[in-house]
């Protein structure tokens, strides 16, 4: 069935089709529609789930960790300040190995107040042990929620599906809504190995001295490495089931590319048009869209960057005191390679400043005039 859906509703449908059983959420612009639609679905009985109307995002995540520990499927959505407030519990969800799935609407952090899109909120959580992926359109948002459950539950590690504020959350696109029985076949119910169960009592999360804490951290990292394989596997299986295949990354016209634009989310979507435009002018440009950011697909990066002459990473975020965050990770992935192209890091679009095709063409033209990267940040579209 095809429906015109805003990005937020694509998240709601993803959770509904995945048969989320406990939902705990707190409203925040621009996420409110996600939970409003899920509330309606729960109230009408369309979705058989408990909806806890928590009094804060911190409680939202804490309650989902508790629910997940009993062995049920959980969902929430948030953005910006809400995600920041959850931070302590994001660490808890990962450490407790509870496969919570969350939708995050990328919104700039305050102060000052902003409701517009920027990636700092989700990227600030990159070290928590959560898997994270950046969607470029509403179809991907819906599809990724379903895939996220499959990966998260196979590995017992939480995952967030991320979309841009307003650009996706409030933009309506035609979305193919998969059939429920097909989703049920693709995504069976969650089975948790050690769970809260009076018939089999365990204590969870007890004090662990240095003699064994290290190994538990090692396990999370090993699981992240397994996730690299799992995301590809599940993305391919999704393609077999529903006709739309996904992977850790998406490449566009890279086979003969000399210059490579590296980006994520909706900016990558825009960059794809730019690639076509530049190709018409005879420029050999390609696009690498990084979809899964955690775990970071270093192998894929190395594979694709090894054959280009120049890589331009466009970040809609910044790691203060360092540089654009995707840029840092791409550079790190390439560092030990014998052959690596110069990598340029562009920071643009913070606080929701629009990033148009024209802007990206401008970025390309400016960067290709540079012989080598002179600094770690090339600021674009800013009034300086």
């Amino acid at each position, binding site marked *: 069935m095809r429906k015109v859906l805003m990005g937020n509703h694509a998240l709601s449908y993803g959770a509904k089709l995945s048969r989320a059983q406990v939902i705990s959420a707190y409203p925040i612009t621009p996420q409110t529609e996600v939970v409003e639609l899920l509330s309606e679905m729960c109230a009408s009985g369309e979705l058989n789930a408990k909806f806890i109307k928590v009094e804060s995002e911190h409680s939202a995540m804490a309650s989902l960790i508790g629910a997940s520990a009993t062995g049920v499927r959980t969902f929430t959505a948030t953005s910006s300040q809400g995600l920041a407030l959850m931070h302590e519990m994001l660490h808890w969800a990962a*450490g*407790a*190995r509870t496969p919570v799935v969350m939708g995050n609407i990328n919104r700039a952090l305050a102060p000052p107040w902003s409701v517009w899109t920027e990636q700092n909120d989700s990227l600030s959580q990159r070290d928590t042990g959560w898997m994270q992926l950046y969607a470029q359109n509403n179809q991907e948002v819906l599809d990724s929620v379903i895939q996220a459950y499959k990966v998260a539950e196979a590995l*017992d590690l939480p995952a967030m599906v991320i979309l841009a504020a307003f650009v996706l959350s409030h933009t309506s696109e035609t979305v193919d809504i998969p059939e429920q029985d097909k989703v049920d076949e693709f995504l069976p119910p969650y089975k948790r*190995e*050690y769970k809260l169960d009076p018939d089999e*009592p*365990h*204590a*969870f*999360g*007890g004090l*662990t001295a240095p*003699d*064994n804490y290290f*190994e*538990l951290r*090692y*396990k999370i990292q090993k*699981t992240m490495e397994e996730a690299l394989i799992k995301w590809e596997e599940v993305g391919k299986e999704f393609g077999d089931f529903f006709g739309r295949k996904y992977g850790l990354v998406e490449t566009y016209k890279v086979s003969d590319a000399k210059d490579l634009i590296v980006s994520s989310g909706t900016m990558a979507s825009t960059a794809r048009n730019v690639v076509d435009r530049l190709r018409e002018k005879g420029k050999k440009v390609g696009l690498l869209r990084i979809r899964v950011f955690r775990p970071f697909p270093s192998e894929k990066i190395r594979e694709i960057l090894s054959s280009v002459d120049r890589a331009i990473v466009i970040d809609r975020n910044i790691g203060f005191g360092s540089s654009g965050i995707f840029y840092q990770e791409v550079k790190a992935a390439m560092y030990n390679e014998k052959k690596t192209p110069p990598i340029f890091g562009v920071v643009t679009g913070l606080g929701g400043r629009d990033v148009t095709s024209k802007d990206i063409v401008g970025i390309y033209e400016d960067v290709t005039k540079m012989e080598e990267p002179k600094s770690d940040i090339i600021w674009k579209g800013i009034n300086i």
Partner: protein
Amino acid sequence: MAKKTDKKIIFKKEKEMPSHAVSFYSMDYNKTGSWRNFRPVINYDKCTFCAICWKFCPEVAIKLEKTKEKGKEKFKPVIDYEYCKGCGICWEECPSKAIDTEEEAE
């Protein structure tokens, strides 16, 4: 049921560990009797078998042995010295002052 061990478990190999900190064992290995400076000693001549000492023991270290005396069922309190921390609540609360204290030998 939590399994008993004779000492605190430290996993020697990561592969033997669950993916998160899940408990499988009891705290029985921890013989808290070693914490004592003084030990309580029940004088059964004075004891009225009221079970108040058992009631107030935080260590679950007083067991009730069911005995029959003159056809009546009685609960005889028996102190488990492996776990008794010597807090003294039992000798303080005993209404018959039937619990004496002895300094713990070395």
